[in-house]
């Protein structure tokens, strides 16, 4: 009975994530690809500049040295990366996080404040955006191609996922804290206290975790970096706004026609031991 409701929510969460992913992909293609393209151009120009003096020293063979340093071997062409490749990444991300968000929704529904399923869905989307993307972004912001050093990818990935985990755990902690405080402080003040606790704890995490070892090089164009990061935030905002709206409608519709399983069993000709 309840299991089928959870399954229904999960399927709807993944569907809403897919729809959100389509919108996010459109935004990523339109506002995200230009700065990605620009960064790759910067990367290639830098590599060509570095290769040029070396070729000059050798006196000959410059024609061979330049392409070897300037261009990487292409497994997937740029046109594919920027269309089907981008779509794959964004859609899988949308479906997977849509599913996870619907499970989080199933846990908090009716347990945090007196919100309708639609409002709970909106709050879940806002919470997911904040904890999974935005707080980690403030510590380790998204970076365009050409910024990172390939040798530090291990450390950067570990720190980034650690930051996501910490941020999600702090978010869960804030919800639990808010629920505990609500009877004493009232809903409004409990929410403020829990939110404040989250901000302080996240700030402490920012201080404790090491800085990104791979700072953006001073010669990288600031406007391009800004454009890329705004695009990255926009993609995520669109993703979660669409998810919150679509999942809210679907969840409200599914949950609105539920009947009380305990009531159903009480009227059915089954022994009381069938309960549960």
């Amino acid at each position: 009975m309840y299991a089928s409701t959870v399954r229904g929510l999960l399927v709807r969460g993944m569907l809403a994530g897919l729809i959100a992913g389509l919108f996010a992909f459109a935004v990523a293609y339109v506002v995200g690809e230009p700065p990605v393209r620009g960064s790759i151009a910067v990367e290639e120009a830098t590599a060509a500049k570095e290769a040029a003096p070396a070729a000059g020293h050798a006196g000959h063979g410059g024609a061979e040295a330049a392409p070897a340093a300037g261009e990487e071997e292409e497994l997937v062409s740029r046109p594919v990366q920027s269309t089907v490749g981008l779509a794959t990444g964004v859609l899988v991300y949308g479906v997977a996080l849509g599913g996870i968000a619907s499970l989080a929704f199933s846990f908090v529904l009716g347990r945090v404040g007196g919100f309708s399923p639609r409002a709970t869905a909106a709050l879940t989307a806002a919470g997911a955006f904040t904890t999974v993307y935005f707080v980690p972004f403030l510590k380790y912001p998204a970076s365009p191609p050409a910024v990172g050093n390939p040798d530090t990818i291990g450390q950067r990935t570990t720190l980034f996922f650690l930051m996501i985990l910490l941020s999600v755990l702090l978010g869960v902690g804030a919800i639990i804290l808010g629920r505990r405080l609500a009877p004493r402080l009232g809903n409004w003040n409990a929410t403020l206290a829990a939110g404040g606790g989250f901000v302080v704890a996240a700030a402490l995490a920012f201080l404790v975790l090491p800085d990104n070892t791979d700072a953006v090089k001073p010669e990288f164009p600031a406007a391009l970096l800004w454009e890329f990061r705004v695009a990255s935030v926009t993609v995520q905002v669109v993703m979660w706004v669409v998810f919150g709206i679509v999942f809210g409608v679907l969840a409200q519709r599914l949950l609105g026609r539920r009947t009380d399983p305990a009531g159903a069993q009480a009227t059915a000709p089954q022994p009381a031991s069938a309960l549960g």
Partner: protein
Amino acid sequence: MAEAVASAAVSAPALSPSAPLPVRAVLPWALFVGLLMLVALYFVGAEQGATAVFSGEGVHEWVHDGRHLLGFPCH
């Protein structure tokens, strides 16, 4: 509430749309499907970067632009 009372005579009473779902009903889905979703996220966000299940660069190259724009560390 009034609707719940009215429909109770016919069949099972309507449940509030916001009635909590029992944790034991959510937990199995959270464990199995949640884990599956995390594996999918790993392939988008980190495969063939810091660690690799498959050799080569195919997965990384394919999702490359998404990885950068979604905020994951890349190259």
